């Protein structure tokens, strides 16, 4: 496994002094194009106390290894501005907990739309903890104009390792969440009672099903139940309970022995969501949720088409996207999965819709996270594919593979082992990409 390094470069630390919260940005993309320190928003947070508490929760998730806790690297949260709200996302160091704050309680000017990293530091956390309910809080995402003009190379650099496992989990959690259904909805007081009544042991796991207005423990895998694996991973919800209006719980449709789950706390003017991996020791990467959709041969090209149509909208409307791209709905869905795995869309459970955001990491690297597809592309680029009617011959280091284009068969050992049960092999993918290119060229 390669362990790349992420270098954050901030114009200065994020600060909170008086009533002004200035979030420093590093890299990322905006509508106006890539930027070193993009500026997205300047205005007021109308619900200061819950917003500050939720940001602390996000930063705690980013800092924590829930499985075998120990201090380690912290990767800064990612902020997306879609013109209507700010979405702040963070992913735990263990790769098993994803947290997002959808901040709607904003009143101000959107300067641009896009995604970037924001700096969260110790003094800022202290200051956030001091934020009370009565003060309005001014928020600036990106260096303010004054700072931009007076920037004299005051740059904060942080380098952290960015393991594939972490990055892939961050991207894939979106795809996994897209398959979740709402399982329970608890009103504020019931949510408080439920969360306070959970076992104290952080590693405890239980299955819960709605009964009346509460959630109660039930037997493993009961119908309509959600799996809460590692109770301690919900810890960041507790300080937010005093603002909680509703707790919604999501889970996958058909429960297996262990399952992922999502916990969404509705706060005044914002939502705080946690997605937990199936077990505390398992991260999200390698959950395999994506393979079905990725196996469709068009997904890559479709994703490229859709990728160009995305515009940092608050919610991606499938119908509209299908209409604009001229693709059928199933293909749009598959392409969104593809975009999800490459970190280009997120999924909002409450709105049951994708949203556009580009993870502000090395773009090529994120795209490479699907090794089979990347390998297929490399084969095509290297001219390893020779097409003949209904067939293709792909030259690899291990010899020549014969690909049947109609049935997607191959003579490679991998295909021999799996027979399509894990999707097409890289040779079939390469042959299909090459075949499509030929058609396009001849057109």
């Amino acid at each position, binding site marked *: 496994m390669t362990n790349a390094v992420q270098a954050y470069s901030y114009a200065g630390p994020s600060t909170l002094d008086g009533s002004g919260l200035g979030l420093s940005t590093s890299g990322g993309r905006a509508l106006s194009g890539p930027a070193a320190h993009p500026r997205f928003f300047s205005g007021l947070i109308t619900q200061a106390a819950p917003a500050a508490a939720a940001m602390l929760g996000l930063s705690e998730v980013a*800092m924590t290894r829930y499985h075998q806790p120990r201090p380690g690297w912290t990767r800064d949260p990612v902020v997306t501005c879609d013109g209507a709200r700010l979405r702040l996302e963070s992913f735990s160091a263990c790769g098993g907990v994803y947290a997002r704050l959808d901040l709607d309680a904003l009143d101000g000017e959107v300067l641009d739309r896009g995604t970037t990293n924001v700096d969260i530091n*110790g003094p800022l956390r202290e200051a956030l903890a*001091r934020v009370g309910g009565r003060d309005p809080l001014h928020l600036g995402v990106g260096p303010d104009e004054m700072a931009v003009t007076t920037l004299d190379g005051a740059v904060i650099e942080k380098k952290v390792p960015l393991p594939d496992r972490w990055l892939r989990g961050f991207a894939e959690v979106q795809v996994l969440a897209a398959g979740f259904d709402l399982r329970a909805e608890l009103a504020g007081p019931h949510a408080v009672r439920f969360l306070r009544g959970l076992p104290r042991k952080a590693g405890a796991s239980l299955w819960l099903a709605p009964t009346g207005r509460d959630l109660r423990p*039930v037997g493993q895998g009961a119908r309509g139940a959600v799996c809460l694996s590692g109770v301690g991973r919900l810890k960041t919800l507790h300080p937010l309970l005093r603002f909680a209006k509703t707790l919604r719980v999501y889970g996958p449709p058909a429960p297996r022995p262990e399952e992922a789950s999502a916990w969404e706390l509705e706060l005044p003017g914002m939502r705080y969501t946690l997605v937990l991996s199936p077990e505390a020791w398992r991260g999200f990467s390698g959950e395999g949720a994506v393979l079905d959709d990725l196996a469709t041969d068009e997904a890559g090209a479709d994703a490229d088409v859709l990728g160009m149509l995305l515009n940092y909208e608050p919610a991606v409307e499938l119908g509209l996207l299908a209409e604009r791209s001229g693709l059928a709905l199933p293909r749009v869905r598959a392409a969104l999965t593809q975009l999800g795995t490459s970190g280009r869309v997120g999924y909002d459970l409450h709105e049951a819709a994708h949203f556009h955001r580009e993870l502000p990491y090395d773009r090529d690297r994120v795209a490479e996270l699907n090794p089979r597809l990347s390998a297929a592309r490399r084969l095509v680029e290297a001219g390893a594919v020779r097409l003949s009617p209904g067939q293709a011959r792909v030259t690899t280091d291990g010899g020549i593979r014969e690909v049947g284009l109609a049935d997607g068969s191959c003579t490679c050992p991998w295909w021999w082992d799996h027979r399509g049960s894990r999707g097409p092999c890289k040779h079939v993918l390469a042959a299909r990409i090459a075949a499509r290119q030929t058609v396009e060229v001849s057109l």
Partner: protein
Amino acid sequence: MTTAPEAATAWERVRAAIDAGDPGLVADVVTTLDEAGRKQVAAELPGYLPVARQAANERHRLAWEAKEKADEEARQAFVAALIAQGWGAHEAHHAWWTSDEHSRRYDSDLPRSDVWVEPMRVAGAATLGGAAAVATWLFRRDYNLWRPQPETGPLLRAIAARPADWQADLAGRLALRLRGTRWNDDSAHLALQLLRRTGTPPPDHEPLVVAWVSQATESRHDGQAWTTPLESGALAGDPLLDALLPAFFTAEGVGRAARDSATAWAAELHRLAGTGRLDRALLLDGCLSRFLRGGTGNDLRVFARLHDLLDPSPEEVAARRRDYLALLPAAPGPVADLALTRLRGVGLPDPADFAEAVEGLLFRAEAKLVKAGLGWLDQTARAAGGDLDHLAPALGSAFLCESYEVRSRAVRLAVRHAARFTPLGADAVRSSAEVLPPDLAAEIAGAFGEVQVTAPEDAFEPGTLPAAPAPAPAFPPPAELPHRGGLGGIDLERWLDWFVREGARSGGSGLPEPEHEYDRQRWAELYDREVWDQTSEWAEAMLREAATPGQEPPLPAPAAPPRPVGDLRRSFFVTSTDPAPADDPASAIEDALAPHDVPGVRAVVELAGEWGAEVRRGLMEGLEQMTGRREQEPEPARDRLPRERSVSRPHLIMLRRCAEVHAALKAGTLPPYLLATPTRTDGHLDAAELVTRLEDSERTGVEPLPLDLQQALLRLPRQVTTEVAARARALTSDAGRTLAGWLDKRPEPVVTVDWQMAHGWPHPTARITAHSTGLDLVDTLLSDPSTWRDHSHGRHMESWRLVAPTEPDVIAAYLLPHLVHVWERPYVFHTLVGELFELDGVPGEVTALIVAWLLAERAMWRAAERGTELLLQAAASGKFPAAECGRHLARVLRDSPLRPVEALATLEAAARQGAHREVWELLTGFLPAYLPGEGERVHSGHTRVLEFAVEAAAWAGATGDLPVVAAVAGRKGSSGYIRAARLLHTQLTT
């Protein structure tokens, strides 16, 4: 050791020192090198890594071999000496392993195989060019530094010889290499030591701070005693103290590293602040800043202790009032608590601050903090004029507190100020009162208007019980089944049926050669084994006898000489389930043996003190026989059957039946078929069928096999038709009369449980009482099961119910010794217990106890689900002794480490899946036995049980008073326990 001659090159001298494995010597040599010499060594070193490692490994191997040889010689000499003194060979060998000589040799030190590592590091540190190269060299993977090197002195000496700025560079680089996850090498020690020596400002790197904190609590010997830098006061003089102290409060991981030394750290920092060495304000601000950054209570412990020791003055607190205030809503309990204490001391003059504090406190989960918040809330309400609507949400959150006392206080407060809420505010209070228990909700309703009580919120929908088990299918026809893998249950009966009908005559399809070497050897040695305790062995013997009659050699005569004590001792290493206290057996044994001076007796006597009474009795008998005090009992006829106590009785019965068929085959008296072959797969034998079989044997003049007949009787149903009974009475043979007698008066065993404790762990044993029938097999089965249990017990457990398919509790009595030994019983244990409910008879006390235990047990995978399934299966059978099970559950929960919370979870799951009536019935047996009696303390488990009973009673629609509940409900007080009892009592009686 060889020393290189003076004329040797620099590298040769260094290499000789490395080969000597002495880092000190290497340091001596390398520090005297000139620039050219250093360069030469630096160039040679990397290539020498594999050579040095190989040489050290070889030296280690040779030393190890030499030690092994010496050990073996010593062992042989030791054993020979003991044998010469009259010891038995086994005893003498055994004595070696516990001898001082052995442990002395075991502990002796060998040269470490990594002796080459430190010399190489020292040589590199002194000679390699750049500091970066040395930082890499010191922690190369080749060194495999899985344990710290014993001494870093030579390494530091070698580094000290380098230029100062070079050393500073290295110190910084080593510090930055530290990670929070690597603690097994000396990198932290080295980095800190170099930073101190060179006076380099430490880099801003959190793992360095954590390493510094950890090192301050490492014990070291200062020449007089073991002490830590914290205890010895060395911290004050630590040059890193001032530079690293600010980061002590900000670096992640410090709280965790100082968890176990929180008191020492806090005391030392407080002391240094007192002497003026440290700035008190810095410490105080640091603590507050750390609290604000968050963390668990454990990780913040050191800061909380320090804060308490600093004991900030009211002025200091007032200056930081805002910070303390911010801690109230979300900090861990102990931290919020200390913030509250400080704020109380200085007060909150700003009404806005005050309101914020109240809100923060009332949203806490901790009763103590909520109570404080309520006090302040009352104060605010009295002080301020106007409406109190803004306080409604805070009051609402106080209603959520778990403590009843706090909730009732919140309710009283709300009622007191009810007039000051506008209709809007009153609505808010009313809606948040929905979560209150009914009595408190009623108080709110009195002052604020109707409150929707949430009691019926639990929309209980009973599931459907699994269908009652269908009658077992008809018994399959006889068949030749592969026997070598083991024959049990139905397979054994089918096989026996086949063998008697066909196999014995045709010899079967021949005996194939076993495929695997292990099997081949095992079956080749069949006749060498004196005891056949597996059905497969008997089946193999029968097939061989059928194929080649008379091939079994006669059993050898028993070995005559008296057994030496050594063997005796070994043969009593068994697990006893008998916990009866000793009546000084050791001295009795000692007396018995005194005149004989047998070596090893002392050990036997000591061990005997720990064994159960039955073992000791056996030991005494053996010793008395050996020492001539008791006549040797005549050797019973040898038959290859295991002794009665060494296997479980149902298993023995299976073996005895096999032995009977085997003997009949050899004697040529094998009947044409067996009487006991069941007619259903649950072991049931149709009485009419048995009568037909006996009529047939009377007609043909065949004498039935006695054990076969007895087994057939045990399989008969409890009820037979008068017509069948009349046919049975008409039989004239002995066997026929036995059958008629059985139908007339079959034994009715009474199975009870004897509950005993041993070493804090319950040892329930079963007692079986039945009138004697004169039928050997029946009487054996229906007598008290052995209290013994060792690894040879419990075999073929899945077949036991076929031995007595109408006596589930008898089978349960034989399962009982295995119950508490979770890890030694088969995984299917739950299933076997569940199957007892499918048998013809009615399960009783022992089955109830086993179910009760399994409800609460959580040791195995899916234990909770399997407990629930078992309860559902029992409920579905309609034969579940629920109240009995409840009584035993109370006993289990009182006397074993199993916990009520687990049992309740299982009961709730079962109730929701359709067993709600049975669960309530169980509780009616459970509550009187579990709830505390006179003089016993009430704990939260009792309250939880009553709360669950309230729910379960509602689900089952139960009515009718329970005296034990009524008694508690009638007491004075308002504890949760009494309130739950009152609620249950009201529910049951209205």
